[in-house]
């Protein structure tokens, strides 16, 4: 697939012959042929990658000033904010980029849902993405514990206690997670160690994710495979430029939060030092956990609530086998398209419910939304695969462009492409 490395530089040639890193970079980022019709929703993968790098760089700098001990953690973070040169900036970047990382990844995933990017032959690619999401959640959760404020402490208590729901072994698991009988110094220490480690595990999984991606290349808005070189363009300069433009917009939005509302997505209670004797009146997790938290709380039974919450992510692993429709892109799925938006709205609703007190109307809506979340995957998708009549697919990526709008009519003769 790849052209040979074009260079006259003798040193590069010498190295590349022995260790083909330059060829590899060329094949994956320069000459790499990508479908020529990718839209802006395809920017969010590279944005997530950028966010990961920013998190690691700012995190390592923070770790040089941070003290993982219950007596010092809170003050060491305050010291970062007040005394360390530019410490406020580094910490606010780390805090806000965590949110932007999730924004990028959530959009990236909804993109996948809309355009059917999880379907054959990209199932493993998709599943690796879900693994990355889980690792990100674990990392962000443990990072939020580090400043050792009230939300840190009570978030850690509530989330670790989820494991006590498991019969028989639950209590021992929780004691083991804590390294004691409550969230305390041993817990903070191990969370710091893991918070430092997991981002690098994420880097590893991202590498495998990209490996799987490059096996068949990107999906595209039409959801049909590229038929040949005429359907593709080299990654550089076309998508490097498009990605770079996306980075500019992303960082602009990010800077808005960073410089004008750095605590907008945080919670004021976390600026109160942890107190094991007083739970804040209204504990809520970070916004990116809210839909899952809503699912947890909408089920009155403790164990079932915990299982439903885990299942809400676990179900994404089997999504490629629940959606049986041979057509990938929602562009050609007139019914699925509506259910996609309904599902999207349902996720937003769950997010809203997650930050309300679990009673009255929010509780009722939360229950309905939780049910619908699972119905979407377990009932609607399998049924649509059989019942929906997809629109005719274009013959190739180039065809609708080259022949104008009329091309779709021509494609009707050849109704459906099995990718």
């Amino acid at each position, binding site marked *: 697939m790849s052209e040979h490395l074009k260079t006259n530089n003798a040193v590069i040639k010498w190295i590349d012959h022995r260790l083909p890193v330059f060829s590899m970079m060329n094949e994956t980022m320069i000459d790499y042929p990508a479908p020529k019709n990718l839209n802006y929703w395809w920017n969010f993968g590279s944005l997530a990658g950028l966010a990961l790098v920013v998190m690691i760089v700012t995190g390592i700098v923070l770790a040089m000033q941070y003290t993982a001990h219950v007596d010092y953690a809170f003050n060491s973070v305050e010291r970062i904010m007040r005394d360390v040169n530019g410490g406020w900036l580094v910490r606010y970047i780390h805090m806000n980029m965590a949110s932007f990382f999730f924004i990028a990844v959530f959009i990236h995933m909804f993109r996948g849902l809309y355009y059917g990017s999880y379907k054959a032959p990209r199932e493993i690619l998709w599943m690796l993405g879900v693994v990355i999401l889980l690792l990100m959640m674990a990392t962000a959760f443990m990072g939020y514990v580090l400043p050792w404020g009230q939300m840190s402490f009570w978030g850690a*208590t509530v989330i670790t206690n*989820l494991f006590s729901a498991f019969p028989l072994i639950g209590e021992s698991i929780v004691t083991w997670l804590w390294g004691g*009988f409550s969230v305390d110094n041993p817990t903070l220490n191990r969370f710091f160690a893991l918070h430092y480690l997991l981002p690098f595990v994420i880097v590893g999984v991202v590498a495998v994710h990209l490996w799987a991606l490059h096996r068949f290349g990107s999906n595209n808005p039409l959801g049909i495979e590229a038929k040949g070189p005429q359907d593709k363009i080299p990654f550089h300069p076309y998508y490097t430029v498009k990605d770079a433009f996306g980075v500019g917009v992303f960082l602009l939005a990010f800077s808005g939060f960073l410089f004008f509302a750095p605590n907008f997505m945080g919670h004021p209670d976390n600026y109160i030092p942890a107190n*094991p*004797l007083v*739970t804040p009146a209204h504990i809520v997790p970070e916004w990116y956990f809210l839909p899952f938290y809503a699912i947890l709380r909408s089920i009155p039974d403790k*164990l079932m609530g915990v299982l439903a919450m885990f299942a809400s992510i676990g179900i994404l692993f089997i999504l490629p086998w629940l959606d049986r429709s041979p057509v990938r892109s929602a562009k050609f799925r007139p019914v699925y398209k509506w259910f996609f938006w309904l599902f999207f709205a349902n996720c937003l609703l769950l997010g809203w419910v997650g930050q309300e007190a*679990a009673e009255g109307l929010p509780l009722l809506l939360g229950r309905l939304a939780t049910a619908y979340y699972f119905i979407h995957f377990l009932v609607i998708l399998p049924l649509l695969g059989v019942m929906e009549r997809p629109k005719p697919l274009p013959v190739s990526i180039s065809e609708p462009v080259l022949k104008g709008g009329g091309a779709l009519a021509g494609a009707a003769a050849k109704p459906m492409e099995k990718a």
Partner: protein
Amino acid sequence: MAADSAHASQKSQDEETRRDFLYLVATAMGAVGAGAFAWPLVNSMNPSADVLALASTEVDLTPIEVGQSLTVVWRGKPVFIRHRTEAEITEAAGVSLDELPDQEADSDRVVKPEWLIVGGNCTHLGCVPLGQKTGDEKGEFGGWFCPCHGSHYDTSGRIRKGPAPENLPVPPVEFLDDNTIKIG
């Protein structure tokens, strides 16, 4: 001849099973080794000796008037001590066990009925329920109310309503004299 070839195949089959066996034993040995290596690492995350050697807490009950509560710390967690009123005791004792999600008689939860001593973390996900301070909301059953996800506890610290599955736990308590207790 036939016997010969049968013998040969018998032999090669023998060798295959022997080799399979060796593979199996070697792999099993490796797995046991990896497990033996992993266990101390995993176990090191369990509570350490200094955490386990937790001092017990002694509490002087004299300053707690009838109807008042005190929160003390034991093993890094809150413990609720409530000097119950007659009404609270009667109410706790009067409940029929069938009404309780986690069936326990009040008499099994106290040493002396006027002193209720229970762990102060909600058995749902560990928040500290309200009800210790005078102005606090005490829930529908007059004991404690956990605002995190809405669990109601009665005047014996038993779960009555909400997602929590169990009663507030009763720690080991010993009366050293009429007005001093040792928790732990």
